[in-house]
């Protein structure tokens, strides 16, 4: 396992950081939460952020925290699908396809919500889950898994996730289309 400084990784995959923060902002606006500050990308830690007001509405907090996970994953599948066949299966050298694959993987790599995002959910979810809140029940194992994966970033879990989504997603789509 080799170490590459976070800012370098962020710089190489900056579209993913921008999409991640844009997704946070989108859901803040959608649920009408006040946003105090936004940074879409910077060479620092964190490489981007959205500072917003807290909310008692769990649904709003769920989507604000987990929104980037779903949006980045979806966009990763979409962009990788456009490039999957020439890059992985057909072995055709097509620069545009490689550009899209880089874009897709960059976006996919930044799918994981930050520990801060997850802690927001983690504090609210257990109580609501006991009351039978479906989204809270769903969010508990998902948040738990993402916390583990977040810590596993040191062993490139984020890149692994991006590749898995960028390969398995398009593969599943194409296989389903052929059936």
């Amino acid at each position, binding site marked *: 396992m080799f170490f590459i400084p976070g800012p370098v990784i962020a710089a190489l995959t900056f579209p993913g950081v921008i999409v991640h923060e844009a997704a946070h902002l989108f859901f803040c606006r959608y649920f009408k939460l006040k946003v105090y500050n936004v940074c879409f990308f910077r060479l620092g830690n964190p490489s981007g952020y959205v*500072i917003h007001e807290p909310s008692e509405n769990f649904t709003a907090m769920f989507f604000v925290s987990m929104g980037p996970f779903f949006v980045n994953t979806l966009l990763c599948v979409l962009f990788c699908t456009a490039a999957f*066949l*020439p890059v992985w*299966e057909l072995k055709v050298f097509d620069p545009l396809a490689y550009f899209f694959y880089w874009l897709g993987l960059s976006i996919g790599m930044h799918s994981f919500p930050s520990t801060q995002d997850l802690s927001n959910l983690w504090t609210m979810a257990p109580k609501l889950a006991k009351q039978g809140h479906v989204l809270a029940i769903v969010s508990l194992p998902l948040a738990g898994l993402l916390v583990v994966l977040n810590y596993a970033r040191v062993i490139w879990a984020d890149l692994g996730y991006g590749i898995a989504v960028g390969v398995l997603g398009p593969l599943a789509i*194409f296989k389903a289309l052929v059936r």
Partner: protein
Amino acid sequence: MSATSIPPGTTVQTSPKAVACARCGTQIADGYVPVSGRPSFCSSCRTLVEAWPYPQWLRLSLVGLLVLLGGALIHGQKYFRAGRTMYKGERLVEEKRYAEALPYLKQTLKIAPRSDKAVLLTAKAALLTGDMQTAGAAFDGHDGGKFENGKDAQFLEVSTIWHRAVDAMKKAQAASKLAVQDGHEAEAARMMHEAAAQYPEMPSLRIAAEAYDGGVAFEQKDYDRFLAISEKAWKEHPAADSASGMASALGCKYAATGDESFRQRSEEMLQKAFEMAKGDAEELKTLNEFSERNKYRLETRVILTKSEYDKRFRSSSGQPAAH
């Protein structure tokens, strides 16, 4: 990352006396009444925090990306078609429907001749339908058959089939060389049977082996068996060569029995062979050579091998053989 705190360095005033904007620090003098426990903002910051705008560059980037994505999808249509035919071919190969898979996989190779997966699937489907030519062409188009991962299970599987087929073809070639030499018919037939057993996916080897059995029967002067084998070959594989084989066997039967019906049928089959060979110069050449010998056989009722006939009537013996 999102955070539910006020940016560092800002001060949140919660008392009724609060008049400073929690975001920019300017004094609020627009009649805003602060709520306890919530930050106060000036009118411009209030507008901003309530609906933080998407920057223009972000909107333009999104439009640009969508345009690029649309372009990539249009540009990638040929890849989608190639991928579709490859997956369809792969599914048919998994279902062991190799002959049906082959046209799809050949389509894929037109776009992606260097794709390991497409090449190996094509080669497998081709080899398991007895089509070595297509398998060979697929390998040639892929760096002359070089593959990055020589330990890949699919590569090893196809490689095993390929070597089995190549060995069988070597035996078949050796058998065909022996078959034109008088007195080696039995050995040629044995080798051709071995080749057919080794590579049963290629029906032409079995047909050739049976034809060589006919040669053995001819050599042993067992013309009933020669005729039975020739009839079977003609029924299973009606073509110019099997028609001429039957003409030869019927000619032998006429020579041996004097039964005019055999002679008549022999001439009819030869006629049929010429009709079926139309446009095939090589086959016509073989038929012309045989036609002369068969005519001699029918007119004299003397059965000669090609070598005997060549020695007696021809100066050279470089022409192709038929019994």
